[in-house]
């Protein structure tokens, strides 16, 4: 599964990373995989978005979902 990255995470690891998730995986499982390849401190302060919506840890992640890591925002 491809996961989109932005801002400092993009500088650290590129515009996206690919992670392998088993069927039935959740956002929590995704975070565990991402922790292997992304800076842990910033990942911990980041949200996960699934299909353009902030997702809780218990949410299922399925093939075909658009998944992104959202570091603390600074628009405005």
């Amino acid at each position, binding site marked *: 599964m491809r996961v989109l990255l932005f*801002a400092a995470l993009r500088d650290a690891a590129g515009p996206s990373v690919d992670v392998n998730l088993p069927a039935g995986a959740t956002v929590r499982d995704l975070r565990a995989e991402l922790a292997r390849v992304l800076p842990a401190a910033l990942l911990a302060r980041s949200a996960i978005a699934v299909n353009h919506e902030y997702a809780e840890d218990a949410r299922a992640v399925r093939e075909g979902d658009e998944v992104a890591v959202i570091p603390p925002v600074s*628009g405005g």
Partner: protein
Amino acid sequence: MVRLTRDAIDFAALTNEARHPHCGAVALFLGTVRDLTGEHVTVFLDYDAYAPMAEKKLAEIEATVRARWPVREVLMVHRLGRLAVGDVSVAVVVSCPHRAEAFDALRFAVDALKELVPIWKKENGPDGTGEWVHQSAKPGAT
């Protein structure tokens, strides 16, 4: 109306677009690029967005504002790309029959935008270094 743009924001046109004969109050917020953040000197900013989600979140904020206050118009435009000191990065304008509603609606919209919309700025200093600003808490409702 919500929009992301790489062009300069025409806040006067937006404000005029919000005016309406039924509305006695129009309130506008402009975010502009500051040269100083504490001791930190900024020469220019780069704004980036997760565009489809940013547009969705902006539209949700507009819908929430419309549900909570009797606004006639709520217009939110955020600029992306490279901005110089003094440039307008964001404009939010609301029109309402009365002023208290306009103040409350405007403040809510701007606060929600800053909290929820996936847009990031990189502060570029005079020494050529740049740093993404990630000061706020974890975004979203979680």
